[in-house]
């Protein structure tokens, strides 16, 4: 009796898994998978396929997963050489098991082995991992698998815009999505030509997801990266509207042209030694940071206090101060770009603490103005920017 019902159970699970596999074979454009909450088995097929969306009714998910898991563990007892021979069968169980539970590294590993033996196609695998992300936008395994797959492709052959789109969708579906934003950083570092588009996209995202600090953090990485790559947009350099406003706010001075801005922010610096591209990028990136400081203030007026506004404003302020200090003491440091290692960072922090802000008009005014924003902010400034308010002019 028991073995009979066991048998029946197995047949049912096999049937459901086969149904799902048929959908996979038939529809190569599947865009989402999810488990549909249902209370009862209504004696209909629990596999639902509508307009490239695949759903599995919840009552059977546990049983189907158990069965697929058991079968896969059975295969794994054989040698690798043997089980990769049966890739069709394996794939059937792998798809179902990973869609229901994407967190099993062992199953992803079998897929990698199959790819290495040329049993699975790259394109199908990329699509499959996208499908997993539609169910679990925070799946680190799926992102890692994509990066692994791309390691076999040349950089030029990869559709990076598509990859950014996936990151954005996953971050939108699930807030503070560390894995999606890490993946996006990886994309950015591999495809610096995206910087310009990313500057626009990241702002749009921040405006919509006002408390999702992950997106603000990405923006900080992006601006630093743009500066590292000496990135600038020539048509923006004529305006620098936000930077002019910031200088105006601190110094109450009307500035007109980029040369004037440079004289105010970096007085006495040997501009020829630094190089034109670096200086242009300095202006461009500081303008972005000034833009973000203003954005945070505007958002605060609209939505009220949020930790993310406060923190991002500070990060943007820090960017501007740090880059000024770096260029002002260029001969001392010998490096103009942000520190690459923790040791360099530490050296720089020590340097920041010793830096004499009061000798420079712009930084002195900035320091004074920021000191008026409350005792907490003053404490942060002295810890992270090395402002010494006691002995200073403030």
């Amino acid at each position, binding site marked *: 009796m028991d073995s009979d019902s066991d048998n029946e159970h197995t047949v049912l699970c096999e049937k459901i898994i086969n149904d799902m596999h048929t959908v996979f074979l038939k529809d190569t454009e599947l865009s989402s998978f999810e488990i549909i*909450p249902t*209370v009862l088995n209504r004696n209909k097929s629990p596999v639902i396929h509508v307009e490239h969306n695949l759903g599995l009714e*919840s009552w059977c998910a546990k049983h189907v997963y158990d069965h697929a898991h058991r079968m896969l563990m059975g295969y794994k007892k054989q040698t690798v050489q043997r089980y990769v021979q049966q890739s069709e069968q394996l794939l059937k169980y792998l798809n179902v098991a990973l869609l229901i539970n994407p967190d099993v590294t062992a199953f992803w590993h079998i897929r990698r082995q199959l790819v290495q033996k040329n049993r699975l196609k790259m394109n199908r695998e990329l699509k499959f991992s996208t499908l997993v992300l539609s169910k679990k936008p925070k799946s680190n395994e799926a992102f890692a698998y994509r990066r692994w797959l791309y390691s076999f492709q040349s950089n030029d052959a990869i559709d990076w815009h598509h990859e950014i789109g996936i990151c954005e969708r996953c971050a939108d579906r699930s807030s503070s999505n560390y894995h999606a934003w890490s993946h996006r950083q990886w994309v950015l570092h591999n495809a610096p030509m995206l910087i310009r588009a990313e500057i626009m996209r990241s702002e749009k995202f921040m405006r919509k997801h006002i408390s999702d600090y992950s997106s603000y953090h990405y923006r900080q990485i992006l601006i630093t990266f743009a500066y590292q790559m000496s990135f600038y947009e020539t048509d923006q350099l004529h305006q620098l509207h936000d930077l002019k406003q910031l200088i105006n706010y601190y110094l109450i001075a009307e500035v007109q042209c980029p040369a004037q801005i440079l004289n105010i922010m970096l007085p006495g610096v040997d501009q020829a030694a630094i190089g034109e591209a670096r200086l242009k990028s300095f202006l461009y990136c500081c303008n972005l940071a000034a833009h973000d400081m203003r954005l945070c203030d505007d958002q605060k007026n609209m939505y009220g206090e949020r930790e993310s506004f406060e923190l991002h404003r500070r990060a943007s302020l820090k960017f501007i101060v740090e880059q000024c200090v770096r260029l002002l003491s260029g001969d001392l440091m010998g490096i103009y770009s942000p520190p690459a290692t923790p040791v360099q960072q530490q050296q720089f922090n020590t340097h920041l603490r010793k830096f004499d802000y009061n000798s420079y008009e712009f930084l002195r005014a900035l320091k004074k103005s920021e000191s008026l924003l409350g005792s907490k902010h003053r404490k942060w400034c002295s810890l992270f920017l090395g402002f010494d308010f006691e002995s200073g002019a403030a």
Partner: protein
Amino acid sequence: MVKLFSLSVFYKGSPEARLLKSTYDLQSFSFFQRTAVQEFMTFASKTLVERTQPAMRQSVKQDVYMCHVYVRTDNLAGVLIADHEYPQRVAHTLITKVLEEFAAKIPTDQWQTGAENSIDFSILPSFLAKYQDPKEADALTKMQNDLDETKIILKNTIEAVLERGEKLDDMVAKSENLSMQSKAFYKTAKKTNSCCNFG
């Protein structure tokens, strides 16, 4: 997230409120959830209108959602369901504006007898789309500073709006406007209330 999900216009009859027009933006929900989510939003909107007095504004929080309700003295009512981060002032201004437009366009005799398919008010979706960005709409809201935010009544759950003895679970179970599928979604959401359960 600064997002709007649904906007609907009702006529508050007694005892039932009549749905006159509605529009939804449910792209952020997964495909098979959308029908259930839509049914629930309509259900919640109707329930709230029925429990809001004329000339009263309420903003009711439920999980991450905020339902903004306004019933005019002439019993025309509007409900906006938004994410809780959407600014409340803009939300209520939107409702006021939509109801004004509606009242100007649809004759009063249709309010008590009309239904969604018989009422010609096709600009409702464009309101929802335009107000997705509250900043865009803010120019407009600044002109309407007569809206007194302190008069909006805030409630922490839908339960807090219900009358004595009423229970949300019972109302969901009894409702004829919710499908079996939606009721199953409601039960599962209550039980797990998380995304990391695959059972």
